[in-house]
C-alpha cells in the first residue's frame, strides 16, 4: 500500500478540516477553559460529528457506523491536533469502540455500538493507576461474587472520565501487578453504586478524571473478552489508541511549525526578517524534516493497524516514540522562536505545548515505546 492518502481519505481530511477549523479553532478550547465549562467539550459539535459519521467512524455498518479504518482515524485525529479541539472522539470513538469491536460479544456490541455511533453514549478506557503508563502493573482488584465480580481500586488519567457513561476498566482477576496473565476488562456503568469520580483539571484543559471503585458490583455479562486473558486484547486496543494519539501529535506539530514559520517571515529585528538568520533557518529546516519523518512513521503504523492489529506493535512503538519527541521539539522551538510572545497566555502556542505534554504521557511516552522496541528486537 502506498504511503499517501487515497482520494477518499483526502476528501475525508478536507471535510474534517473544514468542520473543525470553522467550529473549533483554538479559541474554542480557550473559551471552554476560561468559562470552566462543566462538560469540557461542545455537545453540539459532538452531535455534528455524529451526524457526518465521525462518532461511529470505526463502528461497523451493521451497527449504524461508517465502518472505516485506522488511516481514517488518523486523518481525523490529525485535524483535531491542528486546533486542539477537545472532543470525545479519541476516548469513545477510537479506543472504547475498538475495545468493543475486538472484545465484545454480540449482545455487548448491539447494546453499545449503535449508541456510540449516534453520539448518545460516551465511553472510555480506564487503565493507568500509577504515575506512568504501565498497563501490566494493573492492580485494581476484581473478586468473584455470586455470578459476577466486585471491583475495588483506583484509576488515573481516565480521559473524559467525568462525562463518560461507560468505563472499560482493566482489573486483576488473578496474578499480581506486572504479570500478563490474570487481567480482565470490565464494562462498568459510570453511575454504578460505589463509583467515585473526580474531574482533574489538566494542564491542557482537556477532560480527564481520577476514578475510585469501592466494591462496585458487576455481573458476568460485563466481562469484555475472556476472564484473565485480557492482555492481548488490551495490547491491540492500546496500540490503536497510540496510533491515534501519534496522528494527533503530527497534526499538532505541523500546526505549531506552520505558525512558527509564518512568524519567521513576518517578525523583524536588526532591520531584517528573523527568518533571514541562518541559525533559525537551519533549525526550522531540521524541524520540518523531523515532522515529515514522523508523519511517514505514523502513516506506516496506521496502515499496519489496518492490515493486522496484532502485528502492528513495532510500527506503533516507532510512531508513538517519534511523535512524542517530534511534538516536544516542535512546541519548544515554537515557543523559543516566538520570543516573549511565545510565553504569553494570550498567544496560542502555549496551548500546543501543554497538549503535547499530555499526548506524550497518554498510552506511554517516547522512553516507554523506545524500550518496547528494544525488547521486541531482543537486546
Amino acid at each position, binding site marked *: 500500500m502506498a504511503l499517501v492518502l487515497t482520494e477518499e481519505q483526502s476528501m475525508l481530511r478536507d471535510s474534517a478540516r473544514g468542520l473543525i477549523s470553522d467550529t473549533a479553532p483554538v479559541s474554542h478550547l480557550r473559551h471552554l477553559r476560561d468559562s470552566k465549562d462543566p462538560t469540557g467539550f461542545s455537545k453540539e459539535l459532538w452531535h455534528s460529528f455524529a451526524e457526518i459519521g465521525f462518532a461511529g467512524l470505526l463502528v461497523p455498518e451493521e451497527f449504524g457506523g461508517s465502518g472505516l479504518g485506522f488511516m481514517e482515524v488518523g486523518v481525523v485525529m490529525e485535524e483535531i491536533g491542528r486546533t486542539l479541539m477537545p472532543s470525545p472522539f479519541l476516548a469513545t470513538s477510537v479506543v472504547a469502540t475498538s475495545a468493543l469491536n475486538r472484545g465484545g460479544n454480540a449482545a455487548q456490541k448491539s447494546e453499545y455500538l449503535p449508541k456510540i455511533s449516534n453520539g448518545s453514549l460516551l465511553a472510555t478506557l480506564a487503565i493507568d493507576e500509577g504515575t506512568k503508563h504501565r498497563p501490566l502493573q494493573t492492580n485494581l482488584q476484581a473478586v468473584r461474587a455470586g455470578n459476577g465480580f466486585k471491583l475495588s481500586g483506583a484509576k488515573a488519567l481516565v480521559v473524559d472520565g467525568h462525562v463518560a457513561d461507560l468505563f472499560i476498566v482493566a482489573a486483576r482477576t488473578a496474578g499480581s501487578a506486572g504479570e500478563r496473565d490474570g487481567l480482565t476488562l470490565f464494562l462498568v456503568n459510570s453511575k454504578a453504586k460505589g463509583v467515585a469520580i473526580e474531574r482533574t483539571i489538566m494542564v491542557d484543559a482537556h477532560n480527564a478524571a481520577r476514578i475510585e471503585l469501592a466494591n462496585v458490583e458487576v455481573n458476568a455479562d460485563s466481562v469484555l473478552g475472556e476472564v484473565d486473558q485480557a492482555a492481548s486484547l488490551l495490547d491491540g486496543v492500546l496500540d490503536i489508541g497510540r496510533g491515534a494519539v501519534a496522528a494527533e501529535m503530527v497534526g499538532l506539530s505541523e500546526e505549531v511549525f506552520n505558525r512558527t514559520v509564518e512568524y519567521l517571515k513576518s517578525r523583524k529585528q536588526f532591520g531584517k*526578517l528573523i527568518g*533571514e538568520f541562518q541559525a533559525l533557518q537551519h533549525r526550522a529546516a531540521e524541524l*520540518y524534516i523531523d515532522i515529515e*519523518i514522523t508523519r*511517514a512513521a505514523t502513516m506506516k503504523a496506521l496502515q499496519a493497524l489496518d492490515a493486522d492489529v496484532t502485528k502492528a506493535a513495532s510500527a506503533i512503538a516507532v510512531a508513538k516514540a517519534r511523535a512524542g519527541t517530534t511534538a516536544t521539539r516542535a512546541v519548544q522551538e515554537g515557543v523559543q522562536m516566538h520570543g516573549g510572545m511565545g510565553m504569553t497566555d494570550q498567544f496560542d502556542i502555549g496551548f500546543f505545548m501543554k497538549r503535547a505534554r499530555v499526548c506524550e504521557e497518554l498510552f506511554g511516552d517516547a522512553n516507554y515505546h523506545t524500550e518496547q*522496541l*528494544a525488547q521486541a528486537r531482543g*537486546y
Partner: protein
Amino acid sequence: MTDSKTSETETADLEQFRTETRAWLEANCPPEMRKPVTSDADVFWGGRNAKFSSEPQRIWFERMRDKGWTVPDWPEEYGGGGLSAAEHKVLRSEIAKMGARPPLSSFGIWMLGPALLKYGTEAQKQEHLPKIAAGLIRWCQGYSEPNAGSDLASLQTRAESDGDDFVITGQKIWTSYANYADWIFCLVRTDPTAKKHDGISFILFDMTSKGVTTKPILLISGYSPFCETFFDNVRVPKSHVVGQINRGWDVAKYLLQHERAMISGMGERGVGRPLGQIAADSVGTDGQGRLDDCMLRAEIASFDVDEAALAACAERALDLAKAGQAHPAFSSAMKYYGTELNKRRYEILMSAGGVDALEWESERSKQGARPRAWLRTKANSIEGGTSEVMLGIVAKRILDLPGA
C-alpha cells in the same frame, strides 16, 4: 472506488510478480552475494578495466544484467528492466529481504543515467545508457573545484568554442574514482560573461582524451578513492553537451537530486544484523538478556526508532513521487537526515566494538573494515552537498524563508 476492479487485478498481478521475483532471486543469487558489503572488494564497479573479485560476484552481475535488473526501472531499449514503479518497489523489497548485494555500483546508474533519460538526445541515450546498464563504462563526476565546493556555481573550468569542439582547461577536485573512470560528466563554464548560473554547460568526455590527468588524494580512511583532476586543452565535440549550451545548471541540479537520494540511502542496507545484536556479541547481556551497558542500549534503541521512521519516510517519498506530489527539493531533506543517521550508526558500531573496533591492520579486523567504514561515513554529510547546504535548501525552497 470506481477503479476497484482494475486495482484488484493490479494487486493480483503484483503479487504474482512478487512470487516470481522471489523464486528467481532465490534460484539465481549466489549465497556469497547475500552478505553485507564489508570492503571495497565486495563492490563491483564495472568499466573497461573491471575485474571481478570472485566468481559468485561475476555470476550475480551477469545474471542481473541479462535480466535488465542492474537498472530495473529503465526502459528495456536502453538495457533496463522496464519495470513499473510498483514492480520496482516489489523488487527492491525482495532484494532487501534476501540481503542481496547490488550487482553493480555505478555513478552512471545513480546520477548520469537519470539525467540523460531526462535531458539527453536520442543519440546520447543510445550511445551511453546501454553501456552503463551493462557495466561497460565507468563514470566519474567532475563538479567540484578548489574554489567551488558548496558554492558550486562559481566554478571556473573553461570550455572555449573552437568550431565543432569545445576546448576545456581547468582543475577539478574531489573527483571520486577519477583514476579508475573511463568517462567523466563535467560542469564547465561556456560563457564567462553571463551570470554565474547562466554560463555553465554539462558535458561528457572520455578520460583517455589528450590533456586529462589525475592525481589521487589520500583520505582519513587510509584509502585514496578520489583525485585532483586536471584538464589541459582537452578537445571535446559540442555534440557531447547534454541539454542546452549554457543551461547546464538545470541538468546539474536534476542530477544532484538523484545523487542526494542515493547518498541518503547509503545506510539503508545496514550492516547485516540489528545493531542491538551486534552490540550484544561484544559487550554481553545481563540476566534478562539486555545489553550490559544501559546507556548504549538506550542509544541504540533511539537510533532504531529513528531508522525505522526514516525508512517509512523514504518509502513515502517514492510513493509521493509516483503520485506526482513530491517536492523537487525533498531529496535534500532525506539526504540531510539519512547521512546524519548513518554517521550515528557507525558511531554506535565503534562504541559497541570497543577495543576490537580500533584495530587498523590485522587479519582479525579484516584490515580494519569497521574503523575504515566509520571514517568513510563522515564524508556522507559533506559529499553531494553538505548538511548545512541541505538545510539551507530546505529552508529556502521548501519553507520559503527569506534571504535566498
